[in-house]
């Protein structure tokens, strides 16, 4: 273990879980939310030939997932440096 203190270790883990939770809310919202639960409502709106709910289910959710993973990777890198637990 290489944290400066026990409380640092706790704080790091708490921030990690917090960040994860926020990103998972987005993950849930674009797929299960827009793509499944709210699909009928969103289908009233159109972008080009796409009904919006259909677009989320077959396109939008996937684009969002890609962004989420990179955002997570980037923010965790910052968090690691903040607590001095990053790798060389």
């Amino acid at each position: 273990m290489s944290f400066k203190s026990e409380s640092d270790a706790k704080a790091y883990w708490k921030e990690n879980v917090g960040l994860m939770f926020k990103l998972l809310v987005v993950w849930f919202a674009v797929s299960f939310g827009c793509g499944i639960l709210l699909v009928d409502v969103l289908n009233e709106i159109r972008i080009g030939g796409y009904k919006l709910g259909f677009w989320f289910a077959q396109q939008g959710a996937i684009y969002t997932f890609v962004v989420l993973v990179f955002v997570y990777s980037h923010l965790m890198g910052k968090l690691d440096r903040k607590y001095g637990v990053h790798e060389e």
Partner: protein
Amino acid sequence: MELQTLTYLVVGFTFSVYIGIALWARAGSTKEFYVAGGGIHPIANGMATAADWMSAASFIGMAGLIAFLGYGGSVFLMGWTGGFVLLAMLLAPYLRKYGKFTVPEFIGDRFYSKTARIVAVICLIVASVTYVIGQMKGIGVAFSRFLEVDYGTGLLVGMVIVFFYAVLGGMKGITYTQIAQYCVLIFAYTIPAIFISLNLTGNPIPQLGLGSTMVGSETFLLDRLDQVVMDLGFAEYTTSARLSTLNMFVYTLSLMIGTAGLPHVIIRFFTVPTVKAARSSAGWALIFIAILYTTAPAVAAMARFNLMETIQPATATENLKYDERPQWFKNWEKTGLLKFEDKNGDGRIQYTADKASNEMVKVDRDIMVLANPEIAKLPNWVIALVAAGGLAAALSTAAGLLLAIASAISHDLLKGVFRPNISDKQELMASRVAMAGAIAFSGYLGFNPPDFAAGTVALAFGLAASSIFPVLMMGIFNKRINKEGAIAGMLTGLSVTLLYVFQHKGVMFIADTSFLGDLPANWFLGIEPNAFGAVGAVCNFAVAFAVSAVTKAPPKEVQELVEHIRVPMGVEAAQDH
């Protein structure tokens, strides 16, 4: 050049590239056989993971299913990509930090129990073998078309090729080979999609073409497709849900957590040098996967549209004469996967949603992607390329899965539990025998697969979702879960899912032995067997928590192990084991 000759050439050429790479990078040590000697760059690893991940189900099966399910097919698109978000955030970095060869090894250490490790091996084998059955279906379809023989013969040829292919190299060969395979499969998938999108909508980007208007008309492609299918009595393409909203929800969840629990994908994250690289590698893998997954809906919709327009043209006053059917139709009839029956004896093809008058009595969904370029009258080299791509997808995944099965048996069971003194050479031998056994067994079941390729693979995901994912996640995020909880959880999750699948799909997927029949009326809350993994996972979590609460907390050193894997710093190099 004639199509079959051209296909032989293209497929032959790609195969010699893969085999050449496998020979060049031949696995020397046991270590290399499993995890490619560590230190592979995240982008390269992402590409290899993508090839490993995208199987016959993604390449051959998925778009065909979506073509007929429409909006309902979205469960595959969201499920098989969304799982990477879970994998990247919940598992990959921690398992990399822990840094061992296999998933059961982690479970055995974290839950300080050989029994837990053995149970994990069983779960892994059940899920992986089911997955390989799905690949066998895809390989069988591809070879039957390509050699113009019936499905059974195609499957046999495929089994022999998979055997030589997987047993020859190890992970090291596979990592580089898989990068080559990714390139082949992504070209093979996108090029016909670009052509077809251009033909229909004038937009070369399939993702945009799907939302565009038809060439020479103001009507959007999707609106036109909705119209065409509804005129023949089929459900509206863009809105028809898969059974129910609840079923779609559970199905998607099941595929997502299954993605994060599949051992052959997790094992790939052991091959990058650092925890940071494990995180970004998941992102790269997802980008490479997303290229195919965002193209697939366009392929699906356009394939359905072209199929309908060819067989049952909306504009023509009379139906297509059977004697004048196109060449692709005849070719697929030879495989037995496409069947016509002239019910009203008029010599013409009627294709409708009504079972009594529909004369297209069999349209196997798994032929759609392979037939698509032929239906759209694309040049022969494109068709040959698609055949090569389909085989690349099926082979790369089958090889990765067989490796996971082999390492579970030789490394976890033999070396880890029963014969700790086994030599490296014997271990390698055992893993090759295990691979051969798995190919024979899943090939045999592949003659009568439980579902189309993507459906069979979905079953495998359900099994991984219900057994492996929950214990991995609890093992990392909860220090209180102990060995009793984990073992009880895995057994509950696996048996709940397996029992549900077997009672509707037959014991070992042999249809005659299903005791409740595959009928929606008998389904629990209307949830289909393919989607039941999520329910199994919930049971797994609940049982593990309950049992852990009433039994002894894990020993101190295990709690320290959990603390250790939560911190990225101080990762051991993959080479050092």
